[in-house]
């Protein structure tokens, strides 16, 4: 097979090199910075929320007096509602999505499939800048009269219509989600096309690293389901701005009646796949890392890929379990419950394959591996606790309690965050040409692990005890008085976790500037991105590689070239 896309000259000006860059690697880094920035904001909001729950009526330390001068540093109730709304929105749409999908998707897909760039570099660039506009809109909503959106990240009408939230904040929220949806859809179109048509010669779908599988399936889900949320947001904006009656009902619906529950359906048709949109890249990466650092082929890589595909398909038909308490018809309720339960089959196959991968391996505990093992642990907890919520009768009690909060943080926050950290530590050498400090990384891992389990397990215990969500001051209820100490414990765990993230930030910046120079292949891994120099040069591959074996060729006893792994460009050594 001969070669193909042309090698353009590297851009020279600052603007074309770092700002309006068409290079997928630069766009990936832009997304990374953008996501880390919002992760910081979202994390700060989480700390304020936690502080209020543990010490209601006490001033938020250090920042409180600056942010809330009218109340002497105490978070006021309306701001509290805004905080948890924006914490959810920012973490899901502006932190995790940019980091996992935007940054690593952009950075890794072309490198791992042996392409010079994405299929549509300009679309890619636009996708980032439109995302930027969406982030701007969201931040701008904070400075409008009445403040930002305060109806929860789900923004159920009728609370999110004019009767529940007057003011421009909620409208801007909807618009920013709509714009973000457009940006992510553009990204998704790009990813899907790139993976299908830009794979290096010889690379079949099952020769792709599982990371690419995860990102690809994510992109497919994004392209299909983000427009559904877009439609919901658009109708909500019409309700708010033009006075349509889609979601108005009750006393506010003066002229005929709409249906607020319809928004919930539309929202969760998107919302449940969204959970998998966030977790699939992390699954793919973890499946790869476990194999890379156990020096052993990924156990049942094909079945892992197929299990991911199965979950992707199943995720589209189970959304109703978010709405059991709205009293759908018993038939629908039972159907959704049964469908939800079937997800545990592919999930169990994942765990079997992950454990099979490290079984009889030769495990190196580098930081990406530690974080990957962490993902298996927290995702185990998160996945299993999902069973309570998929069951109708226990959901009647647990719905909208902290049990739900703990559960989805385990799956969406803890697993995805740990997966994101693993990816950062793993690809950092390729991105910046330097290694991150291993000792600090390990300190970061253990601190994060202890902190997040303290937080999220504590939350689940609180939820089981009956504490419900989104309370400014839970202790106005008698039955929650006894939960004050546990709430304090959760808050302190959150502070601990927050402090350990500073280690990461320090490590990241310090290593980027002064870290040890990385070799081309510091982890001794055979996928395509490690066949080129670190940091990856402009336009990646001098010659488009020809793929001859799978991505997980480790520990082949017939190898006799002094390495224990094979590059994907090498013919598989047989006995």
């Amino acid at each position: 097979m001969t070669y193909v896309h042309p090698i353009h000259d590297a851009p020279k000006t600052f603007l074309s090199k770092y700002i309006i860059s068409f290079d997928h690697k630069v766009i990936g880094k832009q997304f990374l910075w953008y996501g880390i920035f919002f992760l910081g904001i979202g994390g700060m909001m989480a700390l304020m929320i936690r502080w209020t729950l543990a010490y209601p009526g006490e001033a938020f330390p250090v920042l409180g007096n600056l942010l809330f001068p009218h109340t002497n540093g105490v978070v006021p109730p309306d701001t509290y509602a805004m905080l948890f709304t924006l914490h959810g929105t920012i973490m899901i749409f502006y932190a995790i999505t940019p980091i996992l999908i935007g940054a690593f998707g952009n950075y890794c897909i072309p490198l791992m499939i042996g392409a010079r760039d994405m299929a549509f570099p300009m679309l890619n660039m636009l996708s980032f800048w439109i995302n930027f506009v969406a982030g701007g809109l969201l931040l701008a909503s904070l400075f409008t009269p009445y403040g930002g959106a305060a109806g929860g990240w789900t923004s159920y009408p009728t609370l999110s219509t004019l009767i529940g939230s007057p003011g421009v904040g909620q409208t801007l929220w909807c618009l920013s989600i709509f714009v973000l949806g457009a940006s992510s859809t553009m990204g998704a179109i790009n990813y899907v096309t790139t993976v299908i048509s830009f794979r290096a010669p010889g690379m079949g779908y099952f020769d792709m690293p599982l990371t690419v599988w995860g990102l690809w399936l994510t992109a497919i889900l994004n392209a299909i389901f983000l427009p559904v949320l877009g439609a919901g947001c658009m109708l909500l904006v019409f309700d708010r701005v033009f006075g349509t009656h889609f979601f108005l009902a009750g006393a506010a619906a003066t002229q005929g009646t709409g249906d607020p529950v319809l928004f919930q359906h539309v929202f969760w048709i998107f919302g449940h796949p969204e959970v998998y949109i966030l977790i699939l890249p992390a699954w793919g990466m973890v499946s790869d890392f476990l194999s890379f650092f156990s020096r052993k082929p990924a156990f049942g890589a094909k079945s892992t890929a197929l299990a991911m595909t199965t979950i992707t398909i199943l995720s589209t038909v189970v959304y109703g379990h978010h709405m059991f308490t709205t009293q759908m018809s018993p038939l629908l309720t039972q159907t959704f419950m049964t469908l939800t339960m079937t997800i545990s089959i592919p999930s169990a196959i994942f765990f079997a394959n992950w454990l099979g991968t490290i079984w009889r391996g030769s495990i190196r505990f580098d930081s990406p591996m530690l974080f990957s093992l962490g993902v298996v642990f927290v995702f185990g907890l998160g996945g299993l606790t999902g069973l309570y919520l998929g069951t109708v009768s226990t959901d009647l009690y647990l719905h909208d309690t902290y049990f739900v909060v703990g559960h989805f943080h385990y799956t969406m926050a803890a697993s995805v965050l740990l997966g994101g950290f693993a990816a950062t530590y793993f690809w950092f050498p390729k991105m910046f040409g330097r290694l991150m400090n291993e000792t600090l990384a390990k300190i970061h891992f253990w601190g994060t692990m202890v902190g997040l389990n303290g937080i999220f397990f504590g939350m689940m215990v609180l939820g089981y005890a009956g504490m419900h969500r989104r309370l400014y001051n839970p202790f106005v209820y008698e039955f929650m008085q006894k939960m004050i100490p546990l709430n304090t414990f959760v808050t302190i765990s959150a502070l601990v976790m927050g402090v350990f993230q500073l280690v990461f930030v320090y490590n990241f910046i310090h290593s980027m500037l002064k870290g040890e120079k990385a070799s081309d292949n510091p982890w001794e891994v055979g996928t395509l991105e490690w066949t080129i120099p670190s940091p990856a040069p402009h336009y990646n591959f001098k010659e488009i590689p020809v793929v001859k074996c799978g991505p997980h060729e480790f520990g082949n006893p017939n190898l006799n070239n002094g390495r224990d792994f094979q590059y994907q460009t090498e013919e598989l050594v047989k006995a």
Partner: protein
Amino acid sequence: MMNFINSLMTDFVLSVESSYFLSPTKVITTNGAEIDKLFMYTTVMNIFYFVLVCIGLIGFSFLYRKSKNPKPYYTYGNKKNHLIVTLIVGLAVFLSIDLNITRMSNDDMLEHFWNFPDHKNEDTIKVEVLAQQWMWNFRYAGKDGVFNTADDVMSNHDLVIPVGKKVEFRITSKDVIHSLYFPNARLKVDAIPGRITRLWFQPVETGEFDIACAEMCGTHHYMMKAKLKVMNEDDFKAWNNEAEHLAEVGNDGSNLDNYWGWKWEAE
């Protein structure tokens, strides 16, 4: 700053000392315990599988670390016995947890939570609930037994019911979505404007309990609470007689705001 850290440390020690695994509130209904039972079953099975995962995760990490096991076992996991093990794991989880809890939950729903009492039966207490920002309104049919008439008993914040009788609630909302949440009955159902949702239970213990709103409904969501007062038969009768009398003489029949109720269908 030091002070702040010191106080945090003290708090931390205190919180760890008193952080026992909190148990939920007392069950006061005939069927609330079913939910606890199902929860316990799921927990036991979850612990079993999670311990298996942890044994694998930590055990393999320990056994096959590089210094101990320098030569990895070269396998793709595509051998027949590998596939069989994987499938068995998948099916074992599905059969032992999922199918069982689906069945148990369906039984619970059909036997208890969807099995609404006959509201035409004299013994069933009927209550209409109207949620609004940020208050619960309760309505009893009053002396004539018909809802939305001038003699209806109306009460804010306090829900009084007799012990041992089935109570059926029909719930709607005036403005935004709320959720009627009885922690002690292990039940909640959304209050949705434009729709009527239903809930029932049969209390078996007297006392005062909390009622909460579980769905985010605005700034003062956290203040939207009410009291559930379960009385013994005689106390309830006394309360009911007085309330019905007061409603008859005290209700302003011309105030349209009082007619937020609706008639129940005669099945």
